[in-house]
């Protein structure tokens, strides 16, 4: 089911809406946000210079650093008493980034998430269990309101206490699971250790996964444990932009449809800032064109993807972004080679003797970077040469993909850390980076 008529607008109709909303947004930030006005003056741009959608390129970028510099409310375009909600992202370094919502913003958010949930198969009859941490993080409440809006029954089980999660899932007959891909795998492990037969005793048929990127290999792994008949979709968003609801996969699983009537996407070269031609891979930049409290202009997401505008079989006309290849933040530079953890994950998940959990450790000895991959042994053998064969297989596949030699450390099952929120699988122990 397609939730909103807007999702099938013709490009012409859509661009008309986008342009009107963009003009409104640019006027608003110029008037109400001194930080933006100063930046625009510095760049020699007035709102009246924006005469077409293409002129968006003239506007300066916004970065996470801008949000930190104006902490907490410096980029807000409304008075504080217009706010009805405040969220913050957990900044691991420095100040968190704060986001605010007016009443209309919450409605917009709910609308966006309802659309994405529909793409993931959500229906009124679903029992949706939300295994995202509730609190300052936008993920849980975003999905919560979006799914409730569809009429689905919400089980706000949050994260933690995985055994109880499985009990709810069984007793409430949960049909739709919201989690990170790695927590979906963790829950399956817990269910098995409790003796629960997932495919027979649980009724989960839809997995709406987000908050970390999901490689194809990860999706396959999820199918293996949850069942081939489960619709596993990923969706994308970030708290700065609104939370979840920026884009999501439809049942054809070929890229995530961006809610283009609310967000204008661009792809830039992360080094030069130049807008790249359609279809090229680069950093995703998003302009929020229908937000009141925090209308970000050309926000640099640091996520690497590409956009495509071909019509989708589902009937939606919104463009799609490819499943993320990684974040420019997550990219490791090892011995001069750019490495995305997702590339390593693809290799590990392709080796049947290994489990899906892994850890990437980067150290430096003298002037040389060392890459170590710790991974759990799933299929036991009683021969050393077999263990060596497995290590060598991983090593040579990594070499093909990355061009790097890695030390493969096999460890026992269930010994690597499990994650309920975003998985943190990289340990970069080099002093400088």
């Amino acid at each position, binding site marked *: 089911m397609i939730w909103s008529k807007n999702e099938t607008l013709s490009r012409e109709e859509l661009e008309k809406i986008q342009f009107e909303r963009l003009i409104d947004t640019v006027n608003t930030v110029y008037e109400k946000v001194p930080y933006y006005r100063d930046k625009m003056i510095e760049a020699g741009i007035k709102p009246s210079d924006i005469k077409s959608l293409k002129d968006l390129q003239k506007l300066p970028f916004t970065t996470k650093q801008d949000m930190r510099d104006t902490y907490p409310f410096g980029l807000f375009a409304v008075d504080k008493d217009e706010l009805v909600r405040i969220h913050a992202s957990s900044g691991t370094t420095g100040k968190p980034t704060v986001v605010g919502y007016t009443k209309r913003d919450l409605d917009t958010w709910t609308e966006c998430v309802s659309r994405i949930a529909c793409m993931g198969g959500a229906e009124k009859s679903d029992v949706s269990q939300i295994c995202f941490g509730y609190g300052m993080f936008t993920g849980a409440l975003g999905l919560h309101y979006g799914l409730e809006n569809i009429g689905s029954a919400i089980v706000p089980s949050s994260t933690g206490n995985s055994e109880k999660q499985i009990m709810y899932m069984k007793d409430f007959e949960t049909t739709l699971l919201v989690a990170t891909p790695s927590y979906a795998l963790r829950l399956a492990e817990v269910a098995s*250790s409790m003796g629960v037969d997932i495919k027979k005793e649980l009724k989960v048929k839809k997995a709406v996964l987000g908050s970390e990127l999901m490689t194809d290999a990860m999706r396959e792994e999820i199918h293996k444990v949850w069942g081939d008949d489960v619709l596993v979709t990923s969706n994308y968003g970030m708290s700065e932009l609104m939370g979840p609801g920026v884009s999501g996969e439809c049942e054809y699983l070929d890229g995530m449809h961006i809610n283009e009537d609310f967000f204008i996407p661009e792809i830039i070269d992360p080094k030069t800032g130049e807008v790249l031609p359609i279809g090229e891979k680069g950093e995703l930049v998003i302009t929020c064109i229908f937000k009141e409290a925090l209308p970000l202009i050309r926000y640099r997401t640091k996520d690497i993807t590409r956009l495509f505008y071909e019509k989708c079989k589902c009937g939606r006309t919104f463009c799609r972004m490819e499943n993320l290849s990684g974040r420019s933040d997550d990219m490791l530079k090892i011995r001069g080679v750019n490495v995305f953890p997702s590339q390593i994950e693809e290799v590990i998940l392709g080796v049947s003797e290994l489990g899906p959990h892994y850890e990437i450790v980067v150290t430096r000895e003298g002037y040389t970077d060392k890459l170590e991959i710790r991974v759990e*042994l*799933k299929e*036991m*053998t*009683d*021969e*050393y040469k077999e*263990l060596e064969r497995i290590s060598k297989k991983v090593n040579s596949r990594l070499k093909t993909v990355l061009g790097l030699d890695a030390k493969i*450390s*096999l*460890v*026992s*099952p*269930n*010994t690597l850390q499990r994650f309920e929120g975003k998985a943190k699988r990289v340990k970069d122990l080099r002093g400088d980076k």
Partner: protein
Amino acid sequence: MLSKQISVFIENREGRLGEVLSVLRENGVNILSLSLADTSDYGLLRIIVDKPEEGSKALKEKGFSAKVSDVLIVEINHEVGALSHLMEKLAKAGVNIEYMYGLSLHGETASVIIKTKDYQKVQEIMKK
């Protein structure tokens, strides 16, 4: 005599062997023989126990990688040259031994545990 052996994967981490042993103890599984060789990163613990299936199940439940496989227990005389004599016989018959370790002494005889794919050959040789 064909017997069951449990192999357990142990990464080189302090206390890991102790954890395996205590799982077996808690489940009343008695160890008859043990062999542990290791590389710099991990080791394979091979044990002959009185209740291999129970032992393996208990270990797996505790999150260890464990596997039950077939090995041969061959009894030889407890005297100089007995093992060497056995090896010569097996080599002559073209038996390929993957690994072996000792079991125990019972007065006049001793036993060795042999892992090979040529079980039948060995058993035939021993009957002679």
